[in-house]
């Protein structure tokens, strides 16, 4: 039963080898989906290319459904999976800062690594700046710390917060996704294509 490392079925050394292969698959999938191109990525904000939205929403949906089913069938202990903790304030403000970064830089950290890997200088510059940004954060961390820890809701799930069952949430999410795919396709056809 999974998670394999949690139940000690994989040793630490093999875990690192697996990390390498998982990373390779992650990088390969992103690059092959066109995420090494900033101009393709920002297309989602101007309506000429919705690849980011399609890949992101499809991946989220597939993962949510797959993990729920695996838990349901007893192949994975759903309760021990790491749920990203919710700190309302920092999650929102951090996201807003990243939104600024996305529209100005044209990448996010994962996609900039992919771009850097295939020789895009803008990706390399973004990645170096990412290092600097983390360093800057470490300098200002003492000032930000109180806000960093504000609004701690623990490892709360969106379904607990909304008060709906996981099944109904996924069902609703899937319908929203299909509608979103349909509407964005109509928008893309209306917008002047951008060649890059």
């Amino acid at each position: 039963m999974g998670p394999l490392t949690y139940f000690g079925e994989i040793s630490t050394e093999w875990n690192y080898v697996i990390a390498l292969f998982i990373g390779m698959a992650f990088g390969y999938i992103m690059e092959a989906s066109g995420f090494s191109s900033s101009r393709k990525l920002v297309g989602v904000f101007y309506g000429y290319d919705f690849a980011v939205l399609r890949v992101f929403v499809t991946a989220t949906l597939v993962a949510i459904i797959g993990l729920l089913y695996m838990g349901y069938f007893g192949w994975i202990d759903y309760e021990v999976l790491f749920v990203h903790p919710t700190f309302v304030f920092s999650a929102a403000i951090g996201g807003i800062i990243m939104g600024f970064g996305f529209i100005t830089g044209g990448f996010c950290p994962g996609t900039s690594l992919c771009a850097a890997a295939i020789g895009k200088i803008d990706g390399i510059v973004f990645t170096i700046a990412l290092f600097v940004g983390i360093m800057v954060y470490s300098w200002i961390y003492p000032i930000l710390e109180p806000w960093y820890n504000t609004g701690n809701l623990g490892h709360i799930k969106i379904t607990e917060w909304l008060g709906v069952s996981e099944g109904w949430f996924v069902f609703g999410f899937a319908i929203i996704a299909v509608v979103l795919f349909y509407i964005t396709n109509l928008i893309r056809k209306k917008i002047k294509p951008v060649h890059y």
Partner: protein
Amino acid sequence: MKFWEENKKHVYWNPYFGGFMLGLLLIATFYITGRGLGATGGTKSVVVATVETVAPKYAERSEYYGKYYDEEANPMNNWLMFETIGMLAGAFLSGALSGRAKFRIQHPKHIEPNKRLMWAAVGGLLFGIGSQFARGCTSGAALSGSAVLSLGGFITMFAIFGTAYVLAYFFRKLWLN
């Protein structure tokens, strides 16, 4: 051969196929490790390791690095480091197989290459700060968080994309002709 490569250059995977594969990869990652994917975690490990090597006294005193100083043996940091190395290799493999791997600056025609690089630096800087504050970036917080229905993951996802949509109009000259 050349024609074939030229033709393939801009042929990316069908986004639904890419999304499906990424979803399967997320499931496999959770099945094996109990956690999701990440992209800034590995970068942060490099920063922490660099600061500890260059300025060990500072790292020990600093509130931020002090947190990691004690957790030197934390295997999670190393896991993400190996994953990040894999990402670079995987992306290069995909790019090389499709004839996309070469040194260049991608920018709209009307934007000077240096201007593009300057804005890329601004974006990277902001993402570095934002991802640390939000405890994860688009991969670690938004994607992997949402995969297990984390409320914080959804908040971060909406904040990133919502902000970028709001600002898109003001930065349109950077991207559109």
